């Protein structure tokens, strides 16, 4: 898949999955099924038809958000091929019904609210506030300069420091962010990609100063560079160089930080970039297979690293399609890992995932409507069996959220957990004719994409040619057009809209963060030992130049000497250069 083009598995699988569906399964008695078929036909010709004749004007061309056409009714006839071994039990292959036997009865999903803004002090305060409110996992967002590997005093950072997240220019900033938070006791998710290796080193550095051994650290860095080229587009180097760094991180973590989830394979951004649910599913899993192959290339055993790969999906407004997507993802992952990569170990087969409700579904018009949207999306994620969840705040179409809005978003999850009964039963929508049928559709479409990607020469080649990016851009334009033409409705935007300038209170970030960060960086540079900094950076450069070296060890040394993020990333810029994306207009 990664450097593919020649693997016959994908073509075979794409074909067999469709053929398999056409066969008759064993779940239903043949005669009973014949009855159902007759019954449906009769219902259609009489009851349904008469109803429509009396009240014409039924909506035509009804489809899912991905464009899968829908009938008005689903019955056992639509899932007649089903063999129950394809569905199984929670905690059992193929994990369609959930990854843990008792699902939310044993443990609720982790309520993980993404936060981070302004100065490290601001973020430290917000993290502590969330811990006090009962949040169970920390999550940190970084600003653009950090994401692109520039220090706060770089010219390109001007005006962007602390705007979309917290700024980190050196280990010192991380010490402040996690000040007073015992890193041995929390799990922290850091949304960082291109410089994920550096931030992992910094986190380990803070732990070291707190006296917590690396082996005890729990958390996640995103480090999913494939989706950066596909969707979010926050890279520094060409794909090969970034993949090499990901490989180094995989090998390093397998050895030194066994509880660290070093890649969060992310569909979230693919979806936010305008993809369909089908594309999100297909491209994210393709990336996942890509990382499996990367790990194998590095000489690791799948069993060694697959349990540390986690996934990150979007949940947006087409409720049932989203649930089908989550279910299909689990079944595809387990199936392909077992059949294609020969995995036997159970822990490597189960797909654990984090979900975030869709930012793109929020509207700046009538912002309180977003509370409702987020609640529906969150419910879909829970019914889809997510392991952790971030709910967006209603004011996020405008700016970073205010504290009040964040609280409502967290309460939304708590209401689902405590009041709705949704966590009582594993995979409560399993067995719904419609949901099972839709789950199969999603799977089929995903396998077709895997085949196409492989035929395009594998992921890396397809990405460099802009194939996946173009697919997404085209879908995103299709969606926008549908809203523009009134085929899809967005309440408060193209339907039930009103002239309004509803002022909502938004979080203000001024140049205070930029000034404070620049001052701190200057003082860090003054107090550190330049000779040691230069020596560690020189060793890092050597490691970068030698492809079979593991660069994380020298990077950790550089971080501990307070070499800055920009300096460390800069070493790579010299070694590998930068990257310009293919034009996909």
């Amino acid at each position, binding site marked *: 898949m990664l450097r593919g083009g020649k693997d016959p598995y994908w073509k075979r699988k794409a074909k067999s999955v469709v053929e398999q569906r056409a066969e008759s399964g064993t779940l239903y008695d043949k005669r009973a099924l014949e009855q159902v078929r007759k019954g449906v036909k009769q219902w259609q010709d009489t009851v349904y038809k008469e109803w429509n004749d009396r009240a014409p004007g039924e909506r035509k061309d009804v489809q899912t958000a991905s464009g899968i056409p829908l009938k008005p009714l689903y019955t056992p006839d639509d899932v007649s091929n089903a063999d129950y071994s394809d569905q199984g039990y929670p905690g059992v292959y193929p994990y369609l019904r959930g990854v843990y036997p008792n699902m939310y009865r044993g443990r609720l999903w982790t309520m993980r609210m993404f936060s981070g803004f302004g100065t490290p002090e601001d973020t430290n305060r917000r993290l502590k506030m969330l811990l006090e409110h009962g949040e169970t996992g920390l999550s940190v967002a970084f600003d*653009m300069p950090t994401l692109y590997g*520039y220090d706060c005093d770089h010219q390109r950072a*001007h005006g962007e420091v602390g705007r979309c997240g917290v700024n980190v220019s050196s280990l010192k900033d991380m010490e402040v962010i996690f000040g007073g938070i015992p890193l041995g006791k929390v799990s922290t998710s850091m949304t960082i990609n291109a410089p994920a290796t550096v931030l992992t080193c910094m986190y380990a550095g803070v732990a070291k100063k707190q006296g917590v051994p690396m082996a005890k650290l729990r958390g996640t860095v995103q480090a999913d560079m494939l989706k950066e080229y596909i969707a979010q587009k926050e890279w520094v180097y060409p794909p090969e160089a970034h993949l090499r760094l990901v490989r180094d991180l995989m090998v390093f973590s397998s050895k030194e930080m066994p509880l660290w989830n070093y890649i969060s394979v992310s569909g979230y951004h693919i979806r936010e970039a305008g993809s369909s649910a089908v594309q999100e599913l297909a491209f994210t899993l393709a990336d996942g297979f890509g990382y499996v192959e990367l790990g194998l290339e590095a000489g690791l055993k799948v069993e060694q690293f697959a349990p540390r790969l986690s996934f990150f999906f979007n949940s947006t407004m087409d409720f049932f399609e989203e649930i089908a997507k989550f279910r299909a993802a689990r079944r595809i992952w387990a199936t392909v890992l077992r059949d294609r990569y020969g995995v036997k170990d159970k822990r490597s087969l189960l797909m654990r995932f984090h979900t975030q409700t869709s930012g793109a579904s929020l509207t*700046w018009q009538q912002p309180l409507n977003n509370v409702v949207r987020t609640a529906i999306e969150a419910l879909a994620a829970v019914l889809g069996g997510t392991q952790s969840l971030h709910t967006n705040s209603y004011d996020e*179409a405008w700016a970073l959220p205010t504290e009040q809005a964040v609280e409502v978003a967290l309460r939304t999850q708590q209401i689902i957990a405590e009041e709705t009964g949704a966590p009582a039963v594993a995979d409560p929508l399993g067995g719904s004719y419609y949901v099972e049928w839709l789950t199969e559709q999603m799977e089929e479409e995903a396998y077709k994409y895997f085949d196409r990607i492989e035929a395009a020469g594998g992921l890396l080649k397809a990405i460099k040619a802009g194939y996946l990016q173009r697919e997404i851009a085209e879908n995103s*334009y299709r969606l926008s057009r549908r809203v523009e033409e009134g085929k899809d409705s967005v309440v408060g935007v193209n339907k039930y809209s009103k002239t309004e300038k509803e*002022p909502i209170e938004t979080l203000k970030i001024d140049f205070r963060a930029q000034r404070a960060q620049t001052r701190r960086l200057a003082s860090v540079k003054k107090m550190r030992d330049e000779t040691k900094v230069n020596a560690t950076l020189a060793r890092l450069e050597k490691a970068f130049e030698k492809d079979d070296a593991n660069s994380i060890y020298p990077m950790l040394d550089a971080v501990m000497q307070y070499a800055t993020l920009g300096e460390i990333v800069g070493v790579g810029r010299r070694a590998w250069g930068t990257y310009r994306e293919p034009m996909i207009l």
Partner: protein
Amino acid sequence: MAKKSTAIQRKIRILVAKPGLDGHDRGVLVLARAFRDAGMEVIYSGLLPSPEEVAQMAIDEDVDVVALSLLNGAHMTAFPKVKRILDRLGGKDIVVVGGGIIPEEDKPKLMRLGITGLYGPGSSFEEIVEHVRGRVREERWR
């Protein structure tokens, strides 16, 4: 730079760009397609150009319009910077429009600098395209 051909009927040439550290290109790519479908000649800057590079590209490509988009909150520094450099490079007649996530109170300041439109997510193509056409008409009749 030689004064550009300002034939009233000339097809509108528009540069679509994100002048900052912001990879969220869904909006610009959709807009680029919408401008193209509306009959304009569209040039896309690609990702991560600096404001200087965007301004230079606008001059080199002899465009009528620069459409800027940022979702990262840096519009108050990046948009005016593009405009300033454009003016300095002799592109005073190039129309600058913007969009993205732009709080209401930032708008008057940007508009005073001649950066208009300032559409947020979910705005209609028709409205945006009309705005661009309107500004170009004004500029050509000036």
